[in-house]
């Protein structure tokens, strides 16, 4: 809904299952059980963001940003094709909340998403620089690749933090 976050023209809001790589600000609004995976190359000032929805692709390839396993790979591939190198890339992981009460069922898929994202990062030997996962509240995530990379998280309970 807030399509012009802080009035920056180049900023992009990513919907469910989307991913982008570039040097412009990126955001995901209203993150629940999904995960915002941000890979950031401090040397090249290029970031990749994926709005991950489910843990496993099970062979599906048309929306690589949708699944934890394919998202990690597609972000790394695209960043490396823009000249990034593995050893200067670090990860920020936000999301994976369990929002529903009175529900023991599959709606709380956040935990499985978190586990899958971390496993895939470890497989690719990507270091996690900052993590805010789990919990019960929704979040909006904003990332600016310039400078040292700036991450802002706004939570549904009204709190906000900056990294």
């Amino acid at each position: 809904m807030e399509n012009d976050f802080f009035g920056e023209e180049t900023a992009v809001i990513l919907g469910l299952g989307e991913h982008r790589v570039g040097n412009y600000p990126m955001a995901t609004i209203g993150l629940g059980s999904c995960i915002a995976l941000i890979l950031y190359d401090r040397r090249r000032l290029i970031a990749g963001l994926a709005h991950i929805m489910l843990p496993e692709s099970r062979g599906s390839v048309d929306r690589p940003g949708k699944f934890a396993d394919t998202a990690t790979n597609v972000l790394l591939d695209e960043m490396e094709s823009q000249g990034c190198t593995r050893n200067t890339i670090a990860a920020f992981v936000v999301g994976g909340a369990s929002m529903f009460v009175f529900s023991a069922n599959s709606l709380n898929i956040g935990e499985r998403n978190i586990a899958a994202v971390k496993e895939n990062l470890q497989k690719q030997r990507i270091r996690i620089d900052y993590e805010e996962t789990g919990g019960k509240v929704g979040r909006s995530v904003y990332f600016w690749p310039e400078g040292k990379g700036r991450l802002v998280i706004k939570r549904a309970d009204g709190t906000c933090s900056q990294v």
Partner: protein
Amino acid sequence: MELDPVWKDALTEFGNIGAAHAATSLSQMLMSPVEMTVPEVLAIDIADLHKYISNEISAMVVFQIQGEIAEGGYIVVSMPRQTIIQLTNQMLGMGDTDREINEMDQSAAIEIGNIMISAFLDATAELLGIVMLPSPPALAIDMAHAAFESIVAQVTTDVNSVLIFNTELMSEAPPVYGSIYMLPNVELADQLFRMLERLMEPPS
């Protein structure tokens, strides 16, 4: 994904019948008139969901559709925070609207959701001649889009678009406002199409 206009009409009518029954049950609970919009039926690409679902803090009561089609998708009643407080106050005869959401509000939201959705599913299932029952409800009071993500994730494992029915209900006194969303999964959507097709056939 574009919906065929004839399908869209049929699905709108289907949603209309369900929502009308839900509105009646809400009106009886509040003892006041409730107005409703004509349902919108949309096939939305998951990447565009954030353009349709706001990020307002809302109470979302969520039911899985069960019955003849096991795990047929989800049906959701979404009400802004202020509406929940109004409804609880109305039912308990309280006046303070400037307060935080408490456990009483959670129970009230679930109860209202239960009654409205049972009416919705009863009416639509009867139209189709099948059994559709709501699961026990789950509740989230959070950013609406964030709660929707979890639901959408369940119905779009293998597809990239989702069929959404949306009706808005409102009453002036007490000032309440809510929406009903139905998100059938692929199997239920197919079955809906087939059944509506049969209903629309000219009698021979």
